């Protein structure tokens, strides 16, 4: 049974539709990522699941039970906020104990639970401190401990890493993954960072304009994007998209390689690539240019550092893409369509 299920969920703020008919199911113990640009409705969706926003339309089911009208405290959810939202006037111990106090748990049991949760995150020695005396990473652990102490059925995380600096973020991500695997709790994680989404998610729901554009594993959404939005939102640099009179096709920059370098298994589709500019990034080279037949669209090729072949600027080069790596999209609605034949 789905731990979290939303059906036809919709949220209007005045004239603006933040979430526009979303259907989604999360599976037991799964790490589900809601990914999308800012303003795509991912946070609103999360807040509706938490009960912090009331949906305009649609149903929310937790463990098969309709909780749509219920306040947050009646749902067995825990949420970690972007700012962590620790109570600044309370010690770490009291922060973690707060949800238990609200439940009316007796003090002895409460102390035990707080120690258990603190132990899970290795923050026992911080229990008597106040939030402002903690580092960013420590605050995150306290926020996680406070969320977990009630043993919720679902864990909701709203961009919990975005307040950390780059170095700390990698470590915190590691921590978070390790802990999620160990506890095995169903998690819904909101982020706009595709690296986080690809690295952490069991499945990713890519959202745009209040709709889920694609739901699938990281491999799925990267290699088999459901539409041009997903194709361009994921990947850095994004998928190259080229327009023909009847359809759109695309390929990933790392699949676009010079003739002769590429392994010759399967059929390859050749293109004449005119290179304008080269960016040398250490572990790879980005080649910017265009393809002769589609000269109004910029195309990027990404060569790994292992390809040392010299590439001259302002000249045409023979490049190719494996035929099975070409993706085809409808010209009008941008949806994925069956493979087409490239007219040459």
């Amino acid at each position: 049974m789905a731990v979290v299920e939303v059906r036809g969920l919709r949220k209007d703020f005045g004239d603006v539709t933040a979430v526009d008919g979303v259907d989604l199911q999360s599976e037991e113990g799964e790490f589900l990522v809601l990914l999308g640009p800012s303003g795509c409705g991912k946070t609103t969706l999360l807040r509706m699941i938490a009960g912090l926003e009331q949906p305009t339309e649609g149903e929310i089911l937790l463990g098969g039970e309709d909780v749509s009208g219920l306040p947050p405290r009646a749902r067995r959810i825990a949420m970690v906020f972007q700012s962590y939202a620790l109570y600044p006037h309370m010690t770490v111990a009291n922060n973690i104990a707060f949800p238990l106090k609200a439940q009316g748990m007796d003090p002895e049991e409460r102390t035990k639970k707080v120690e258990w949760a603190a132990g899970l995150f290795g923050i026992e020695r911080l229990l008597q401190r106040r939030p402002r005396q903690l580092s960013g990473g420590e605050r995150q652990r306290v926020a996680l401990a406070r969320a977990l102490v009630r043993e919720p059925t679902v864990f909701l995380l709203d961009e919990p890493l975005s307040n950390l600096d780059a170095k700390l973020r990698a470590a915190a991500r590691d921590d978070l993954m390790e802990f999620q695997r160990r506890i095995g709790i169903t998690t819904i994680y909101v982020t706009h960072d595709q690296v986080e989404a690809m690295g952490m998610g069991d499945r990713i729901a890519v959202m745009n304009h209040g709709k889920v554009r694609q739901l699938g594993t990281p491999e799925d959404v990267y290699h088999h994007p459901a539409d041009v939005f997903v194709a361009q939102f994921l990947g850095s640099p994004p998928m190259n998209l080229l327009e023909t009179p009847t359809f759109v096709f695309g390929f990933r920059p790392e699949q676009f390689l010079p003739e002769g370098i590429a392994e010759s298994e399967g059929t390859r589709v050749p293109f004449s690539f005119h290179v304008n500019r080269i960016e040398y990034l250490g572990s790879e080279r980005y080649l910017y240019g265009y393809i002769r037949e589609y000269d109004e669209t910029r195309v990027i090729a990404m060569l790994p550092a292992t390809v040392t072949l010299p590439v001259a600027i302002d000249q045409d080069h023979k490049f190719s893409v494996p035929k099975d790596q070409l993706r085809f999209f409808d010209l009008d609605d941008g949806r994925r369509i069956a493979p087409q034949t490239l007219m040459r």
Partner: protein
Amino acid sequence: MTTTTERKERYLGDNPRFLAGLFMSPAVLYILALVGFPFVLAIVYAFTDISTGNPELDFVGWATFSRVLDDPVFREALWNTFLFAVIANVLVVVLATALAEILVRDFKGKWLVRFLVLLPWVAPVSLATITWLWTLDSIFSPIDWVLRQLGLITENMYWLGQPGTAMTSVIAVQTWRIVPLAAVIVMAGLIAIPGDITDAVAVDGAGFWRRMFQVTIPLLAPIIAVAVLFGVILTISDMSVVYVLTRGGPTNSTQVLSTWAFIKGIEGGALAQGAAVALFLLPVLIGITAVVLRLARRREVM
């Protein structure tokens, strides 16, 4: 940079110290003339026996102060000031916090409620108080009329004519006047509480009272302290409410230090004693300010 703006020499207007002085001078002059000068004059007067009948500065040391302290009316006024400030401000804090909580909510007609709440504060004190004077009139009081119609009283209350009800009335009107200011201050504090904190409280399962007493009020404490500071200073230093409503009566039962200083010094002509009574407030106010500001700072650095 273009050539026209390239100047070699510095003008006076380029000097930030000069500009700072220039821009501050109106405020400084104003404060010196209307606060500083009378303040110094009051200190000088308090150590003389000057009166309107004898406007000569004869220094008498602390003699004026001891005469003032020996006066039983002064002691009654001191006690009344204390009672007045404490009760009014306890009421102000409770009402302002409740009002602020209402004012930050979204509801229809919010602007009207906000306007009505602020009205007592924006109305001139003396005019507003005169309205209350009529409302509490011994014969024509509409409050009495309502109570009579409800059958709760048979005779008029004479609100301002009996010591107990007079003090109650004065405190009520002062509370009514200060609540809007305190409510706006507390509201600013409420708005400053991050939305994530409020959401976290909801997700953590706390209800209204737990949120109020374990999160909102502790987080608001420094702001409430500031509101109390303003409230105490405004109740202690203000004479208009008491003066307009009762002139300290009946038989000095609502006399406070500020009215007593005015009655003694200006109406009675004993300028030296009036000044001494007025200065008596100063160390009290400085003490309260220091304590409250220290409390507020301690809450902040938590």
